[in-house]
């Protein structure tokens, strides 16, 4: 009796699993749902979901199968990210991974899971310079410019604001070390003086000791390269409380609404931020943002929404181009759908892309956040925006190309 029951259950499981596999094509979304990036996630995830919805509405993947995003929590740090990526690849059996967000989590997941298992990984946000030279057998891509670029732009922006002497504090991980060093080199090359260059550990309660030392170095402003919810907001808050600094310059990690919520907009009036951005508004991006706000009730101006949509879209296009869910074939197809030449396909044009691919035409996806032409390292050139605080959110005042 027991044996029969067991066999029946097993059979049911196999049938169920089999049918699920035939209907849905799973794509992993490795997101820092908890941890220091938690506040960024809801709109970013919505970006990815909109891409998923566009694909499914426009005819689905391959022969009309449903694309299914499977979310796993990387906690925006290395070890949990490896665990989450392992779950996506080995248990959920995803075709490709969109993510992770922070550079440390992305590199760890790539090295431990994506590269050894031969799974395509496209990060919408990882910016560390060290990703450029990752030995990835061409499996790892990102669609934001490297911090080599953001660091250089930041240096120019800081000097344009008239800050000749700054102190720098950066978080001790791939992100902080990468952008901190490129900023320092470029800033000094352009004639700026770095009075103190100090790294700090994430997740501590007090940074007053470090800040006192930084303040005594006589800088005009403090460059904070950290995640707002990890250490950034505490650093800004404790600096203001003790009168160490009044002017702050932050990167994309600090440009988080949580900073304004916790500090208040007034105290941030003389600060500014840089962040990877999208090309200056064109019809396609405006239409996309309007559609996003309509679907989710706002949030299209939040960081990395565009990139999450594009990364998910690129993976879907690569699967369609590959004509199968074979992981290697999907990886090999990515460049041909992302890079020129080819017929240009924009956001929301899934049905058109499907037709072109089935007609055997070469396509070139030009996304919301840029054209996404991958170079040999899987990097893209891009745009960096400069932001100030206005009201209770951030406003882009300039785009560097």
């Amino acid at each position, binding site marked *: 009796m027991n044996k029969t029951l067991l066999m029946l259950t097993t059979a049911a499981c196999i049938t169920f699993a089999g049918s699920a596999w035939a209907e849905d094509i799973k794509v992993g979304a490795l997101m820092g749902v908890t941890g220091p990036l*938690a506040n960024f996630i809801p709109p970013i995830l919505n970006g990815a979901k909109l891409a998923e919805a566009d694909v499914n509405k426009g005819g689905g993947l391959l022969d009309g199968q449903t694309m299914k995003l499977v979310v796993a929590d990387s906690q925006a740090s290395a070890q949990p990210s490896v665990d989450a990526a392992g779950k996506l690849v080995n248990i959920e059996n995803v075709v490709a991974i969109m993510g992770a967000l922070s550079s440390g989590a992305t590199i760890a997941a790539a090295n431990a899971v994506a590269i050894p298992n031969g799974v395509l990984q496209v990060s919408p946000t990882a910016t560390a310079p060290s990703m450029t030279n990752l030995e990835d057998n061409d499996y790892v891509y990102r669609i934001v410019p490297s911090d080599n670029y953001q660091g250089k732009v930041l240096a120019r922006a800081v000097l344009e604001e008239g800050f000749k002497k700054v102190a720098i504090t950066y978080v001790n991980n791939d992100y902080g070390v990468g952008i901190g060093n490129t900023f320092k080199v470029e800033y000094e090359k352009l004639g700026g003086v770095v009075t103190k260059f100090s790294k700090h550990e994430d*997740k501590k*309660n*007090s*940074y*007053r000791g470090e800040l006192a*030392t930084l303040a005594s170095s006589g800088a005009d402003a403090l460059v904070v390269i950290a995640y707002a*919810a990890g250490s950034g907001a505490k650093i800004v808050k404790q600096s*203001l409380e003790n009168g160490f600094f009044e002017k702050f310059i932050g990167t994309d990690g600090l440009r988080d609404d949580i900073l304004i919520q916790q*500090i208040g907009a007034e105290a941030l009036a003389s600060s500014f931020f840089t962040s990877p951005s999208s090309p200056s508004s064109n019809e396609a991006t405006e239409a996309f943002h309007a559609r996003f706000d309509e679907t989710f009730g706002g949030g299209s101006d939040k960081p990395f929404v565009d990139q999450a949509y594009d990364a998910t879209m690129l993976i879907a296009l690569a699967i369609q181009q590959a004509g199968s869910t074979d992981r290697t074939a999907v990886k090999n197809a990515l460049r041909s759908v992302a890079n020129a030449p080819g017929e240009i396909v924009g956001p929301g044009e899934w049905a058109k892309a499907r037709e072109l691919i089935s007609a055997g035409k070469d396509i070139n996806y030009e996304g919301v956040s840029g054209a996404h032409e991958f170079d040999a390292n899987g990097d893209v050139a891009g745009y960096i925006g400069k932001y100030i605080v206005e009201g209770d959110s951030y406003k882009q005042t300039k785009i560097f190309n």
Partner: protein
Amino acid sequence: MIDFINYYLIPGITLGSIYALGAVGISMIFGILRFAHFAHGDLMTTGAYIALTAVWTLGLPALAAIPIAVVGTALVAVFLDKAFYKPLRDLPSIYTVIASFGVALILRSAIQLLWGTDSQVYVVGFQKPLIFFDSLRIALRHMQIIAFTVAIAITLHFFLSYSKTGKSMRAVADDPELARIAGLDTEKIVRWTWIIGGGLAAIGGVFVGLDTDIHTNLGWNLLLPMFAAALLGGIGRPLGAMLGGLIIGVAEEICTFPIMDIEIISPSYKSAIAFIIMLALLLFRPQGLLKGRVL
């Protein structure tokens, strides 16, 4: 010199107070129930979020929400014991330790479900510290945290030395067999251990939220230094754990003080200090400062 006090010593004592409040529970549970309770950090998180709810719904200031957080978290702790740890009590303690890992994950996920994953604050904005004698700067909330912790330490000392329950707890920690033979109600003592441990963890959690911000990994991030503090003070010695917490908190902060403008230890190595102290202690004085049980 005044910089040393303002920016290193006082934040150190504040941090130490928070460690102390968490370490008391860890040390008592270790002493009386004989297992390392890895869900203790998440009890702190629970307390911080219960207080946050009281701040939101009743409009209380965070300090006034402490009693609600204490009661709520103590109830959660007693429930966790009944549901998860009591059935395992007769098995080797490794089962309970692993179970407490599971409980930690359950608590954290439940908090994420109920309150979301965004980081929150009790009060928006920032406060200038109070300035004494033109140079000594102390944030009001740091004075509150330190004063409360001192009051708790004194109360705890009198409770353990003079009340019947307190004396029974010490007896069980010293020799559970003998205590049972002498007719002490072990279950009642276990219950009180969870009430006190959970309640103090909640206060610690609220203090973290008051000092910085509230997020779902708040307690988990503090767990290792709190264990170091419990070991430093001597296992089963609640006041030793408080002393240990204070030492580790202060050591983490002041170790980065630059002497003659030279930073001897980079601030990015702060976390390592707790572990260096713990390792040195296990090597040279395994019974802890106040002669606790040797592991």
